[in-house]
């Protein structure tokens, strides 16, 4: 499976490393709610875009045509386009909050792109099993956090109804205040999102090394990416327009159901694991 020149793979990995700074910034932003790293992340993102372009051009030259023949190549191209678009929008409007959404998306797209190339098998069985262990632990911790998000969202809905109805019943007295529940659901969601992002990355690497490209069509993986997308969207809307309240709580519950489904498909393990 030699579909890219050696150097284009190298540039793509450099790009991915630089994008990972952007991802780190996005995760820290939603968890810590401060944007100190933004200039660094933005600079590395701009530089990464150049390498990304170099990688795609080189690959096109090697192939002798426009490189959009498979999933990996097209996600690489989409990643670059989003990056460029973001940089233009940022240059025109200084819309920083968008980075929370764009950085993780671009990183994941580039991650998928870079997984189209064969790599060395595991250096040792110990590394292999500890890598898998890391993936499982991150994913389970992520699910646990998202479960708490779901609990907080359900309590939010009940308490919100009590407050809107103006007829306090037992729940009004027993449940925590709305502000507390909202805070709890946001914090657990941010932590859960960071954890499942890392779980997704470690899992993708592992599956790729073990199974080549077969894993992409695994239903559990697809669901995992969908879940991840839902949470990314929720965190982004919360971060930018402060989307919260009843509808946001419904979405959080839907996201948790999706996460639960991801976890339950094939009883916890992937279809390609024998």
């Amino acid at each position, binding site marked *: 499976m030699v579909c890219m020149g050696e150097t284009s793979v190298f540039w793509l990995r450099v790009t991915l490393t630089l994008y990972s700074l952007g991802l780190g910034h996005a995760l820290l932003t939603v968890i810590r709610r401060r944007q100190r790293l933004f200039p660094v992340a933005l600079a590395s993102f701009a530089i990464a875009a150049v390498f990304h372009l170099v990688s795609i051009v080189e690959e096109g030259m090697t192939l002798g045509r426009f490189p959009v023949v498979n999933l990996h190549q097209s996600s690489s191209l989409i990643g670059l386009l989003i990056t460029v678009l973001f940089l233009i929008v940022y240059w025109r409007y200084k819309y920083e909050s968008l980075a929370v959404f764009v950085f993780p998306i671009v990183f994941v797209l580039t991650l998928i792109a870079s997984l189209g190339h064969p790599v060395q098998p595991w250096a040792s069985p110990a590394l292999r099993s500890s890598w898998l262990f890391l993936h499982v632990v991150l994913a389970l911790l992520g699910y646990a956090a998202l479960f708490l998000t779901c609990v907080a969202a359900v309590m939010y809905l009940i308490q919100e109804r009590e*407050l809107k109805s103006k*007829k306090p019943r037992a729940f*009004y007295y027993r449940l925590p*205040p*709305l502000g507390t529940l909202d805070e709890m659901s946001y914090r657990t969601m941010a932590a859960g999102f960071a954890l499942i992002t890392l779980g997704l990355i470690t899992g993708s690497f592992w599956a790729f090394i073990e199974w080549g490209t077969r894993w992409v069509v695994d239903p559990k993986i697809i669901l995992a990416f969908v879940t991840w997308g839902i949470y990314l969207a929720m965190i982004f809307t919360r971060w930018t327009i402060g*989307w*919260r309240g009843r509808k946001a709580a419904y979405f959080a519950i839907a996201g948790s159901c999706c996460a639960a489904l991801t976890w339950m498909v094939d009883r916890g393990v992937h279809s390609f694991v024998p």
Partner: protein
Amino acid sequence: MNLLVLGLSHKTAPVEVRERMAVPEEGLAEALSSLVAQPGIAEAMILSTCNRVEFAVRAEPETDAGAVIRSLFPLDPAERHLYQHAQRDAIRHLFRVASSLDSMVVGESQILGQVKDACAAARAAGTLGGPLDEILNRALSVAKRVRTETGIGQMAVSVSYVAVELARKIFGSLDGHTVLILGSGKMSELAARHLRRSGAPAVFVANRTWERAVEMAARFEGRPVPFEQLFEFLAHVDIVISSTGAPGFLITRERVQSLMAARKNRPMFLIDIAVPRDIDPGVNKIDNVFLYDIDDLEQVADANRRQREREAERAEAIVEAEVDRAMARLKAQDVTPTIASLQAELERVRRAEIERLRGRLGDLTPEQEQAIETLTRGIVNKIAHTPITQLKTLASHPDGLHFIDVIRRVFNLKENP
């Protein structure tokens, strides 16, 4: 043990009677000292608040403590308003009073402080220090237990406090949530004061008449803002109390809807106490906006009152259990000295009788001496056996204290051996 509580409260006496019976703070020490100076009164405490005047005393078993108190204080005109509780009932009454179960507003927290002060005054006057002191200390911890284990003091029952409670239920902490008062009025001012004290960092005041806004703001460290900039401020403040004289809706649904975008959906709590109303009731349908008018606040206050009553039932159960425990402890303390003094008394009688008759018996062999000793001891022990076992078993009986008293009287035992 002879405990007595004698007094009157808002439940039995109108304010004209209560104020006449009140013991002023400066006369408290003297009143306490004169009480314990009476024969038979061992300990005393006087609780005198605007809602109740109560004398709690521990007396010697034979003393009619009620009569002693009546002889010292001019209670005659209030006789029909007086209540009197003895022993177990006295303990229960003290526990209930400290736990605010006997208060006008059940669950109010002031009474606990007043009981504490009364105890401190009595201790300072040297009229506490025995079992009554112990019971009063117990009453304070029962009150704390009731407060932490039930929600009796948590729910607001006045409209202005309901506003604070709702703000807390919406925002969690009030820290960082500013308040805007629209128009003027006693109630909005009161609510603003409560909110400020509960942690709201700033209060803004807007009024169509600038001077009135300035004047009202000055009264509680608020900040007057121009009425024309109302909607700019509404985008930033989180709690609004409105009570203007406007004939129609001042704040419409469309207005709030557009505000929410500018507020990035941060929740908003609107309180409309104006009649006719200032805020379109449809506003409550907007996500993250909570609108309460005066009737809604009353409705919450009512629900809170009912909730307090439910909590009060749980509190009564706690008090009852604590009374049992206090009684058991008192009896255990009472039974042992009673048994000891009963045995000592019978032994004294036996010795006195042998002493008296020894001369008539003449010379006796050591065996005969021994026989007399065994005989008399045997009689005494047989007689004492039943009362002692009864004392031990009846100590846990509800009427145990009374029984201990009877034994003491029958055998003519002193209060403390």
